[in-house]
């Protein structure tokens, strides 16, 4: 049985169903991210696991113990909030020791654990400060230490990096992952930032309108999106219309060129479907092993530093492609006629 087991979880606020039949198994020590736009129900699921919301139906088990009806303070869960939620009247040390004091641990044990936690987050010399004397990143580190100090079974992080600036966000997310790995703690991380989710998770749950659209490793989610929403939400995607020529053989006409996909199609001949491809799978010119070749005209060129994003107008729409910057090869100019290519196996047929 999974360590954190969520079965048929539902939540309605009045007539609005916010979470619909949500099922998830998380193994011990796993780092799982809930990814989705705001209002998709990811935070609600997290809050139900934490005990701050009561599910309309369904069950939550932690290490085999049913916790669905337990109040938040008896679940042994650590929580990190977006707005830090440090107690303003307590010092860093007192904040970190709060949970241990509630648990009735002795003074010496608390002091030992607090200094251990301060060392873990690299703030050993700031134990006597008050939260308002710390930067945002430092405050969130303290919040993490406070959540971890009582040795919770599960660590829940509710968009913990959203309030921080870009640089701190990246360094702190790496630190969170390192600490999670070191302690081997099971963690659930809620975010709307796909890069964040892709970079630190063992698995990602992509949520959309209260439903878990896809659960998988970052590699699976990015390369084999199960639904149109997942494909569009995670990463950048090109969508081109194609006409089905032979559904059974998986043959379609794309930009006037017949293409054989490596799967059969459900549509009938002549029906229009959407094909998707990632910008990095498309090459300018004829790439090695690329069997789908389209011609078009350069519409836009965006120089992003290490990467150049080019948009090419082809028959069927605009198509974005990424090439690496090469100092000896300037990017093509707008209006130029070009050929672009990609292997047919990188064309995704999206379910509605």
């Amino acid at each position, binding site marked *: 049985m999974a360590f954190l087991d969520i079965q048929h979880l539902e939540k309605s606020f009045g007539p609005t169903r916010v979470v619909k039949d949500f099922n998830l198994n998380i193994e011990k020590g796993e780092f799982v991210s809930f990814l989705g736009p705001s209002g998709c129900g990811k935070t609600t699921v997290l809050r139900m696991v934490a*005990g*701050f919301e009561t599910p309309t139906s369904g069950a939550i088990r932690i290490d085999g113990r049913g916790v669905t009806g337990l109040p938040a303070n008896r679940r042994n869960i650590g929580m990190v909030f977006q*707005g830090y939620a440090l*107690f*303003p*009247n307590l010092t860093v040390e007192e904040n970190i020791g709060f*949970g241990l004091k*509630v648990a009735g641990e002795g003074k010496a044990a608390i002091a030992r654990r607090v200094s251990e936690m301060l060392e873990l987050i690299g703030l050993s010399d700031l134990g006597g400060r008050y939260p*308002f004397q710390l930067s945002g990143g430092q405050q969130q580190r303290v919040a993490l230490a406070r959540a971890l100090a*009582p040795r919770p079974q599960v660590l829940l992080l509710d968009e913990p990096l959203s309030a921080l600036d870009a640089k701190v966000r990246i360094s702190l997310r790496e630190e969170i992952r390192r600490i999670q790995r070191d302690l081997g703690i099971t963690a659930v991380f809620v975010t709307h930032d796909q890069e964040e989710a892709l970079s630190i998770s063992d698995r990602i749950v992509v949520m959309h309108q209260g439903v878990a659209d896809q659960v998988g490793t970052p590699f699976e989610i990015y390369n084999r999106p199960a639904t149109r929403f997942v494909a569009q939400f995670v990463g950048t995607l090109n969508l081109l219309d194609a006409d089905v020529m032979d559904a059974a053989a998986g043959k379609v006409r794309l930009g006037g060129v017949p293409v054989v996909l490596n799967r059969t199609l459900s549509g009938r001949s002549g029906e229009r479907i959407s094909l998707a491809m990632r910008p990095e799978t498309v090459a300018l010119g004829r790439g090695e092993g690329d069997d789908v070749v389209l011609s078009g005209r350069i519409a836009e060129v965006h120089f992003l530093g290490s990467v150049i994003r080019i948009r090419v107008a082809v028959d069927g729409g605009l198509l974005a492609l990424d090439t690496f910057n090469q100092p000896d090869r300037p990017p093509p100019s707008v209006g130029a006629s070009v050929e672009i290519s990609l292997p047919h196996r990188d064309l995704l047929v999206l379910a509605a």
Partner: protein
Amino acid sequence: MTERRLWSWLAVVLGGLYFLLPLVGMFDFSLRMQRDGYGFEAYRVVLADPQFQQTFGYSVALALVTIVLGILIVVPTAYFVRLRFPSLRPIVEFLTLLPLVIPPIVIVFGYIRIYNTSSVLPLTGSWWGTNLLILFGYATLSLPYMYRSVDTGLRTIDVGSLTEAAQSLGAGWARILAVVVLPNVFVSVLSGAFLTFAIVIGEYVFAALLNVGSFGPYMVWMGGNRAYEPSALAVVAFAITWACMGLIQLVTRFSKFSTVRR
């Protein structure tokens, strides 16, 4: 000095004189008890009066108990209204303002009617009962000040997140209120408490009609029967009120964790 500045100063000076002159006059009068010049004789007489000591001591004790009761009623109420029933806030606010609208004499007559010796709950019949009644009455009178200041204090902290953070760390309601909420609204509670103190110390109507020997009726009695001592008493009462306000300022300034947030 520009002309505009001059007018500003003039307004300040006039306003200051308007408030200060009666006080100066009263203070001056209180010092003239002895015929041969200024002296603190009136203060000595007042402070040495056993009745002053008894009534003042009683009122101070009553004020302190009222403050404790007020905190016990208002802090959890304001907290749960903010946390769980935000839609009830206007209603609770209106209810807490009622003691300002309904004159104390109406409240106390209501009390006497309901709790008189021939009623089901004859609180006015015993010393304890009367004290309990006046305590509840004063707690009611202090509601507008206590509730507003605590509610304002709660507005400055993220009550929801702090509560959830404490809950996730295993804390129950009592601990959340005592360790997380109360210390963070302490300055507001204190300002409500000092206002309560000032109200209870000088309150007359409740005390007189419930026949309680507190400081308010003593001041009135003194005013009707003596010449210099009432002025001395008024100066003492002012000094106490100002000391309370000074203490609020002091605590606000030296509250070590609240300086930046507020």
